[in-house]
């Protein structure tokens, strides 16, 4: 059973015949309007055909040449599927894992080297401790006095910690 749209289309295209045509035309509420619309549809078809028509390729030979190359590539990749995999999928999962592992290893090696250079047991190039003494334990039990010297700049630094008051005999004279 055809729908109205299907019958209408075949009627416009002149492909309804016999009893089907008679039944369809009898079912139209306004035959004159339908005929006018049919004529319009034909004008539309003519317009499309005349104005769109065939659009020529500007460079037909180049089109075929480009296509031949693509097909040759396609054939080559079929003959050598291994090569195709190698070229087309650069970042495979194993490759990513391998790259990640190498990156982590390089990072760890660099970190170890840097930490090794910063070993506190090595003598500083700029600061040398020349005194580390305790103040009188009766006056200031937790106090310490340290002296550092910067050789290059000829500077001496006095560092005191936990000193509650300066003992009288420490006073500058």
């Amino acid at each position, binding site marked *: 059973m*055809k*729908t109205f*749209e*299907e019958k*209408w*289309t*075949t009627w*416009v*295209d002149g492909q309804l015949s016999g009893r089907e045509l008679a039944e369809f035309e009898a079912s139209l509420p306004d035959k004159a309007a339908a005929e006018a*619309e049919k004529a*319009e*549809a034909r*004008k*539309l*078809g*003519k*317009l*499309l*055909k005349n*104005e*769109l*028509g*065939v*659009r*020529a*390729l*500007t460079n*037909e030979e180049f*089109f*075929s040449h*480009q*296509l*031949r190359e*693509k*097909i*040759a590539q*396609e*054939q080559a990749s079929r003959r050598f599927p291994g090569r195709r995999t190698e070229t087309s999928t650069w970042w495979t999962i194993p490759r990513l894992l391998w790259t990640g592992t190498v990156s982590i290893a390089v990072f760890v090696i660099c970190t170890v080297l840097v930490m090794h250079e910063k070993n506190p047991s090595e003598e500083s190039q700029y600061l040398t401790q020349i005194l580390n003494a305790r103040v009188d334990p009766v006056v200031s039990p937790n106090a310490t006095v340290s002296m550092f010297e910067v050789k290059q700049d000829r500077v001496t630094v006095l560092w005191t910690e936990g000193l509650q008051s300066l003992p009288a005999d420490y006073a500058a004279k």
Partner: protein
Amino acid sequence: MQTEATPAQADVSELDLVKRCQAGDTEAFDELVTRYRTRVFSMIYNMVHNEQDAWDLAQDSFVKAWKSIKRFRGHPSFYTWIYRIVMNVTIDWLRKKHVKGAGTEFDDAIQLRVDPASKTVPKTEALPYEMMERDEIRARIEQAIAQLSPEQRAVVLMKELEDMQYHEIAEALGCSIGTVMSRLFYARKKLQTLLRDVYENI
């Protein structure tokens, strides 16, 4: 459907070419491409309205045809078979473009001017004002077609430009004949509304 050679000659040699293609003969395929490239390009151009896109889609269609030519059994005709590939490629592309463009493609995101480098195969040399008028009419038609869905475009162009039968269009689009008729009905209605002033004044 229009063919360049007589139907019998075209069918015999075409089948022969197809058989050679199936045996891996690229020259035979080249011959088939030469026969159909203009019509394939033209059909795609009328659907996408952009020369470069039409070129790329025509290339993709022929490459797909080459890849699957061994599966072609001679029915329907090679022409209908290649059209099926062309329509799949083009409709898929239009759908993807529509999704990417968030619905703007079917309104006005199309080139309205005709590329001066392209040819429209005029029957006679037109005067400048006539050419301008034709360009304008063509732009109006392209705008109207751009408002149809990809499937409606395909149906109306295959019917009106290629004179294909309903069953051929149905085979090319992989749908029923009823669907073809129904799409044609709505496509024509829409185009009549949009282009009435154009075809009434010519």
